């Protein structure tokens, strides 16, 4: 399942390409181009105007302090409609339950306790569909032939007018099995109706829709571009996988509470928040990890498993120190012992963090040469985080990863050193590290200029920004991203996506980029509209699918 090492990123790129020079300075025009490319999801005319007005330094400073800039009201209005984004996992379990939760409700007979009749019918219908292997029946039996005809052949407006006349239960049942025009609703401008239809069909899909819609729209529309890049970067660094069980209820709060508040803050807060979020505890199995004694006591019980090292290993290897950077298998085991008992309450409905003393290994531990005395309880895990925060490998690894995102696949070691020192000096502050990077000669050098291959998400977002596209629906865009190799929130491995050119330079992905560019500029991406004169569409498509646009 887990394919490649992060260490690969630290190696020379597979095809040593453009000779790099981190000493050669950029021209003024190149500087503006460069900073807009790297610190945004793609250059727009508005950005060019802003940076011309403010000057480069002031512009960067504002990006580093997004709270000083008002957010784009169009974006805020869009996000406000995505009602699952601010929900807790319990609320999602209730309003947008995934298949397993629905199945439990139905089988345990508790479906009768669901008060809302629309919801009850929805759940029963979904369970029925699961039994039939996902086959959706259309709804003609609910409707007269005339009505069916309206829904099949009518315009979106006619369909909406018809649906508006129905009572809620009927409306929901019809939307669940719409006999025609599903694509119109899915890709049309009526976000509310689209979400309603998705909810009527597969309730939990609404949550995935909202997450992906928000991510895409923020990248395209946010004035806080750097903050959004960092939200993507840190989520990817602390990756969780949406489709693993209860993460279908937890990923929203994970991004909202464990990642987004800290993207420009302190790395320790990211570590603490991710280590205690049920999404991570579930994804890397720590919630079941217990001391051998506890496992022995619970022998025969369903969850009596014993020590699970997965989280401990990834914490060292991927989140903090980097693979093989000064820890042993023994350290992994000791760290795992420290985190025993860090678990989840009420996991079936998403749950929240809790510490189970009875699962905890109370003995003494030795982590990276530090003695952690017996009896520390929940504090053991916190001590591990302190030890990791102070380890030089952590400073260096985080500095390297940031420099790989913002400077080059093989960042100059001297720059990484300075950033690592900043991390150490400030005890993990992220903003000063970024400031050090953005004011370094290496960042402003030819070695960094256009040295990065855009990841598919970056390519798609930058193409939308370059064409000033009107994005009514992100459903098909999200599908495009999956086929370009970057399904959002669905990277299975804890490595996250690799931010190096070689990862994204292959035939299928390259063809995919060309095809996306042509489809976008000729208005063949459902849900997205661009205004380009027909005579210019082809040239624009070739530009967006061409070699230069793949770099930033």
């Amino acid at each position, binding site marked *: *399942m887990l394919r490649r090492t992060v260490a690969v990123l630290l190696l020379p790129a597979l095809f040593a390409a453009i000779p790099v020079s981190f000493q050669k300075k950029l021209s003024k025009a190149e500087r503006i181009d460069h900073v807009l490319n790297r610190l945004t999801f793609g250059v727009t005319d508005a950005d060019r105007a802003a940076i011309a007005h403010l000057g480069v330094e002031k512009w960067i400073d504002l990006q580093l302090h997004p709270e000083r800039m008002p957010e784009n009201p169009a974006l805020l209005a869009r996000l406000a409609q995505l009602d699952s984004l601010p929900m807790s996992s319990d609320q999602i379990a209730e309003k947008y339950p995934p298949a397993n939760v629905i199945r439990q409700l139905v089988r345990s007979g508790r479906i009768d306790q669901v008060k809302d009749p629309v919801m009850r019918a929805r759940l029963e219908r979904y369970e029925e569909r699961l039994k039939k292997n996902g086959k959706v029946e259309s709804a003609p039996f609910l409707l007269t032939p005339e009505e069916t005809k309206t829904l099949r052949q009518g315009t979106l407006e006619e369909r909406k007018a018809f649906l508006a006349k129905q009572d809620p239960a009927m409306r929901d049942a019809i939307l669940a099995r719409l006999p025609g025009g599903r694509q119109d609703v899915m890709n049309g401008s009526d976000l509310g109706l689209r979400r309603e239809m998705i909810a009527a069909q597969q309730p939990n899909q609404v949550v995935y829709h909202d997450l992906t819609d928000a991510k895409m729209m923020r990248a395209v529309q946010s004035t806080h571009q750097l903050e959004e890049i960092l939200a993507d970067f840190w989520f990817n660094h602390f990756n969780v996988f949406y489709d693993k069980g209860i993460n279908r209820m937890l990923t929203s709060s994970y991004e909202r509470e464990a990642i987004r508040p800290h993207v420009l803050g302190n790395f320790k807060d990211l570590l603490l928040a991710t280590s205690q979020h049920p999404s991570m505890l579930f994804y890397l199995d720590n919630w079941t990890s217990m001391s051998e004694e506890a496992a022995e006591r619970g022998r025969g019980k369903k969850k009596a498993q014993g020590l699970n090292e997965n989280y401990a290993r990834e914490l060292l290897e991927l989140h903090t120190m980097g693979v093989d950077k000064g820890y042993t298998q023994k350290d992994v085991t000791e760290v795992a012992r420290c985190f025993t008992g860090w678990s989840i309450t009420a996991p079936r409905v998403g749950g929240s963090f809790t510490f189970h003393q009875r699962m905890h290994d109370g003995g003494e531990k030795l982590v990276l040469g530090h003695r952690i005395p017996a009896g520390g309880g929940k504090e053991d895990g916190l001590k591990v985080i302190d030890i990791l925060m102070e380890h030089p490998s952590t400073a260096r690894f985080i500095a390297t990863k940031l420099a790989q995102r913002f400077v080059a696949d093989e960042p100059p070691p001297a720059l990484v050193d300075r950033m690592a020192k900043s991390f150490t000096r400030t005890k993990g502050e992220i903003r000063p590290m970024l400031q050090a990077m953005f004011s370094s000669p290496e960042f402003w050098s030819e070695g960094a200029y256009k040295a990065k291959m855009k990841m598919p998400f970056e390519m798609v977002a930058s193409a939308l920004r370059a064409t000033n596209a009107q994005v009514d629906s992100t459903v098909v865009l999200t599908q495009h991203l999956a086929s370009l190799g970057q399904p959002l929130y669905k990277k299975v491995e804890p490595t996250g996506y690799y931010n190096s050119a070689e990862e994204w330079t292959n035939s299928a992905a390259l063809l995919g980029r060309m095809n996306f560019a042509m*489809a976008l500029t000729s208005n063949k991406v459902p849900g997205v509209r661009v205004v380009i004169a027909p005579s210019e569409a082809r040239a624009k498509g070739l530009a967006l699918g*061409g070699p230069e646009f793949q770099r930033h």
Partner: protein
Amino acid sequence: MQTMTRRNILSCFGLGMAPGWLARAVTGGKKTMVVVFLRGAMDGLSAVTPFGDKAYAGHRPTLRVADPIDLDGFFGLNPALRSWKPLWDSKQLAIVQATGSPDTTRSHFDAQDYMESGTPGRKGTRDGWLNRALTEEKAASPIRAVALGANLPRALRGPQAAVAVNSIASFKVRDDAQGDFMSMYANSKDTVLKSTSHETFEAVKLIDSINKQSYSPATGSAAYPGSRFGQSLLQIARLIKAGAGMEVAFTDITGWDTHINQAPQLNNLLGDLSAGLAAFHEDMGSRMQDIVVVTMSEFGRTARENGNRGTDHGRANCMFVLGGGVKGGQVHGQWPGLGPEQLYENRDLAITTDFRDVLGELTAKHLGNKNLAAVFPGYSPKFRGIL
């Protein structure tokens, strides 16, 4: 069944314009190796169960395979692999037991990386073993090395041209923009994108010509599963039958990391694996003489099941080798035993056959690349008599 003949493949390129690789592709070099990576670490002790080992049942109180298909009185196939029994009986399926990598990492990505680079313990290796297994050819087919999926796997990266193909039908530039893109990329100063795009467009032309041929599997019963794996094998079958010079193909199945509630997951995965390859075998018919399929997984799983009806990261695993030229119907390799003192660190099945011994033998004898020192630097594969 439609087979692409020399004539119709030539006609796709127009008279007198046939690229140099074509003659070789159509006339010779028709051996193909298909590599299937089982990502996440398959539980080899459940796939090929050592029911004859006295310690086995004790290690697996709930996960013991109760009704294995007896192979030789000691090992049995998991019932989910039952469609392979005829292949075993006709001696086209071999099993190599207790294989693995000498590097003891229990990290999935490290272990997969080492297996794909072919250099356990060495992270500095830039290319993959399967790319190095291809010999230097002046006029090689642009689809000599194909990975099914959106990304080129580590095993196939390197100097020889290799392409990632999502599906044959979608592998093209739409809207007649191909010519323009070709010249843009060909004239680009970006050497990385330039070389990738060159490989890409050569492959596009060839695959487009294959896509224009209709295809139906050899027999009605050769029903490939609708799974990603089944459909990948179907694409591989089409490319093989096109006779367009594909030497290696790579595909994978994810999800083998069965820490919790292993049995039903493994049942599904093994079912997918066996149904896919059984269909492929039937579809290929007599072509299996020129084909070898090998499965690999980054490590095995703990001998003892854990408290949650699952297994954790272990050491040795088994590999399956399928093909007309395989010395099948036997379990190769030395069985190290499951007794407490026989286990590696009293925990895992010990490794007695380096995975490079298996891959090296297939590379040398099937692909005909004898320069194994270049394929597996720093290691001399020992042939185990699998071919």
